[in-house]
């Protein structure tokens, strides 16, 4: 007879069942049972309780910080200075954010990380420009599967067909790889120049990518402005001006919210959602209505906004075919006016952080976890609406409101970061000190390009307010993390007025180095052009053997560079007689490393008050070589690097006499007892060595 487990009568088992079920449910309902995070289940960390908190304030300027500390308006930064020090932080060459933050990330200069400007060019395609930090590698060339009007890309249904991939173009090894390898946890929020986010090899790194993350179009931010003003609709690369037309049938104003091209339909028409606007007949308020299409039915979205009010994040759903797939994105709406014309500004279409169309964090679920805690947030790298302000579609006040929303969102995210941070390195990035300054900074009595003197002073106050909020952010960190944490407040560069534009391509054409009528990318005669400008600081030689249509023999290159450098250094502003260019850097002298070969031949370091004209950036021409900047974008930093250093403050003694951005990565490694690798050109700012300054090169 086989032994059997004795059966228990049903109702005798009942109390035990209830008890065990109750305990299980109680455990599950308890707060501990609800704890989910990207950290859960990851490798065991080994920071030994040590904490380093870095607040990265883009563009925070040492002169203004000094003044505000002296005025007693930055008490927490003042305390940091007293405890450890406050020094200017040598920036990158050129002092552009992607370059500078890449210096920070790799502890080395552009010769190592390969980021030289916002815009690079592909010499094999003769000056073809591309965004420097990331690129899309196209899918395999396979014909789509055609079903009626629909075209289904093979990679969508056939797993063995390779789809498009997004590649991070920043080279070199980021500092966190060394920490990650040793089990030191790293949390980074809105980190610039790290999109797509690099992978954590040992599962100790969490990172939300910042500057570089595109909008739903894959661009760096396409806003949409809807207006009843009769005008031609414009769909430019950085913004759409759209017509809000009276709809006789409904009595409303109607427009389309445009999305990216629908790659599933023949000829790839742009996706759109119909929008209707109902202004109140008397009051400064309007209702915006649109219908999100979904597989399970339509959802009507209604927003009621006062003039000057920005909506919360509102989801917009595009349906690519009647049976899916869909695309979920989000935007915020600003009702600008309702009379005499109705005008609405819509932010670029951001990814929804709980299900982004692209990977924007490492681990990928990190972005959703943040959203779960704080709600939706800007996923697009450039969150401030500077393009709309540049194009004068937003007023100063509207831009202030919009950028203040970005800052408040960052402050909320930092609270989440502080709650979550236990040990290791916490890096938190603020863009407001840079992108508010680009519009509102003006620190002289000279005539402002776009606003009267009293407004220039008033809006400089907005920048100062942002600095005060950085000071408060530091106070919040100290309150939450305590005194046994190393605090570093740093910026990648400083700021100065942008009063006069320099048309570098125009100058090159006038001097006979460039032959074109309309622009480098349009109609350059490469058989006669010796040099061209592209990007904010780059000048390239049309070199034989390197550029596809190069004509300058390598043996003539040095002489040409010398000639151009001398002429540029001698260039005078016809209005003031001042020098326009402060320094001309030769890439082969200032960059060391495997990527140096891809650099522009010359990097132009403009004088204070001067910067490359907007047309120069894409190789276009201006009427004059030096002329007034009349754009609200009235401050900049893409000039000579010694004019716009950043800042570094810490509660630990800063021993370095001349700290630089490239020192930050070695500093973070040294804090955890990790020796810096050979390719890092800097050293710890806390441990000055005699030959540190001398050893530094190629930043």
């Amino acid at each position: 007879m086989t032994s059997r487990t004795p059966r228990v009568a049903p109702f005798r088992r009942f109390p035990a069942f209830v008890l065990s079920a109750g305990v299980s449910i109680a455990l599950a309902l308890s707060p501990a049972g609800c704890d989910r995070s990207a950290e859960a289940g990851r490798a065991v960390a080994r920071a030994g309780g040590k904490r380093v908190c870095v607040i990265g304030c883009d563009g925070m300027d040492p002169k203004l910080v000094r003044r505000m500390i002296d005025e007693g308006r930055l008490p927490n930064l003042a305390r940091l200075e007293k405890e450890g020090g406050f020094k200017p932080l040598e920036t990158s060459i050129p002092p552009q954010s992607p370059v500078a933050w890449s210096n920070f990330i790799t502890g080395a200069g552009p010769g190592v990380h390969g980021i030289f400007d916002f815009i690079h060019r592909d010499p094999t395609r003769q000056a073809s420009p591309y965004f420097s930090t990331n690129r899309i590698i196209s899918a395999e060339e396979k014909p789509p599967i055609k079903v009626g009007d629909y075209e289904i890309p093979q990679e969508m249904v056939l797993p063995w067909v390779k789809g498009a991939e997004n590649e991070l173009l920043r080279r070199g090894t980021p500092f966190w790889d060394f920490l990650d390898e040793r089990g030191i946890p790293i949390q980074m929020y809105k980190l610039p120049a790290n999109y797509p986010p690099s992978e954590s090899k040992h599962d100790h790194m969490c990172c939300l990518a910042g500057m570089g993350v595109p909008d739903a179009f894959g661009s760096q931010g396409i806003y949409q402005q809807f207006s009843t003003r009769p005008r031609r609709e414009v769909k430019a690369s950085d913004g759409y001006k759209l017509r809000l037309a009276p709809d006789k049938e409904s009595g409303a104003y109607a427009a389309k919210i445009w999305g990216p091209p629908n790659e599933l339909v023949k000829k790839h028409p742009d996706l759109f959602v119909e929008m209707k606007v109902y202004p109140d007949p008397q009051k400064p308020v309007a209702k915006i209505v649109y219908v999100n299409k979904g597989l399970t039915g339509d959802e009507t979205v209604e927003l009621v906004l006062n003039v000057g009010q920005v909506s919360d994040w509102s989801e917009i759903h595009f349906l690519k075919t009647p049976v899916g797939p869909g695309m979920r994105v989000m935007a915020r709406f600003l009702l600008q006016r309702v009379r005499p014309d109705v005008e609405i500004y819509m932010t670029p279409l951001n990814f929804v952080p709980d299900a982004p169309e692209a990977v924007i964090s490492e681990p990928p679920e990190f972005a959703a976890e943040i959203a779960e805690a704080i709600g939706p947030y800007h996923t697009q790298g450039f969150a401030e609406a500077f393009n709309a302000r540049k194009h004068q579609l937003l007023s100063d006040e509207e831009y202030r409101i919009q950028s203040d929303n970005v800052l408040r969102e960052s402050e909320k995210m930092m609270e989440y970061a502080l709650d979550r941070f236990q040990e290791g390195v916490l890096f938190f990035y603020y863009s407001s000190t840079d992108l508010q300054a680009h519009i509102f900074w003006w620190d002289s009595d000279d005539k402002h390009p776009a606003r009267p003197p009293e407004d220039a002073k008033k809006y400089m106050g907005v920048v100062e307010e942002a600095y005060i909020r950085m000071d408060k952010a530091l106070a919040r960190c100290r309150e939450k993390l305590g005194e046994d944490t190393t605090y570093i407040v740093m910026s990648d560069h400083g700021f100065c007025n942008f009063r006069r534009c320099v048309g570098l391509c125009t100058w090159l054409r006038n001097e006979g180095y460039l032959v074109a009528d309309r622009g480098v990318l349009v109609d350059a005669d490469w058989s006669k052009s010796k040099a061209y400008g592209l990007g904010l600081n780059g000048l390239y030689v049309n070199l034989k053997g390197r550029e596809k249509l190069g004509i300058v023999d390598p043996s003539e290159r040095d002489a040409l560079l010398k000639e151009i450098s001398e002429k540029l250094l001698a260039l005078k502003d016809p209005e003031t007689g001042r020098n326009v260019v402060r320094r001309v850097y030769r890439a082969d002298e200032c960059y060391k490393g495997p990527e140096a070969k891809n650099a522009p031949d010359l990097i132009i370091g403009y004088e204070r008050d001067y910067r490359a004209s907007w047309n120069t950036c894409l190789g276009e021409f201006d009427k004059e070589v030096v002329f007034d900047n009349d754009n609200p974008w009235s401050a900049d930093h893409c000039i000579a690097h010694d004019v716009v250093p950043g800042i570094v403050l810490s509660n630990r003694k800063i021993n370095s006499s001349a700290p630089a951005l490239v020192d930050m990565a070695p500093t973070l490694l040294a804090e955890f007892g990790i020796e810096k690798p050979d390719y890092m050109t800097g050293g710890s700012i806390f441990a000055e060595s005699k030959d540190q300054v001398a050893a530094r090169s190629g930043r």
Partner: protein
Amino acid sequence: MDIVTRIMTFLGDLVFAVLGLLSPAWALVIISALTGVAMLLIWRHTSNQDAIEDVRKQISAHLLASRLFKDDLSVTFRAQRQIVWQALRLMGHSIRPMIIMTVPFVLIMVQIGLRYEFRPMPVGEPTRIKVTMKDRSKVRGIGDQIVLPDGLMADANDPCRAIPIRTIDWRVTPRNPGSFRVTFGAGSDVVELPVHAGDGFMRISKLRGGPFFDRLLYSAEPSIPAASAFESVEVFYPARSTPILGVDVHWLISLLVLSIVFALLFKPFFKVHI
């Protein structure tokens, strides 16, 4: 419909007067257990239990046959054909109890939904109230009139009147927690709707008037009189989140899953064949 709604709301209020003492998550677990038991009892009394037992035995027998005689193709095919047939019979026996169960289950769900779908207006934050009129001409004069009690404050620019779609929107901010009655309209044509603010767990009717199914699902309020110029009044309360087992899913999914789990767990005790 008003009478049924009133009775069900009364019963729901009674049940939740007790369950309301617990946290919303625990209350949902208990209500799911009660629902599971209720479903079992309804099933037992409305289904042909003998026939279901017979079908289940038949299925077991044919499964055994197909296993025992797996080398005999004709027996295996016959057994499988019988299994499919018996499964269809089982489904047939389920139709009547399922149909009968639908009515009380929907009514129970509506009552649970009135408590779990939405949370009260957050204090200090604006919540939208939308009034829809039957006729465009009534948007101004009647539709845009409101009487707000102390404790509620409308935006200075309100209302937003969208005449082409006959709607009037108010953005109301509660200054303190509590339940309030808001009156819309003027003269003899007025409509009232209770609104709630704060963090409490309570019955929330987001709608008065409107389409039949919306009223059925979201309202415990009486219909708007047919002669009224008002079509509906709707409050856009924020959604309530009630995490169960550490997972934040919609309350309806929690209810369905938990009530099925409890029904299966209690099945042997009530000797029910499903």
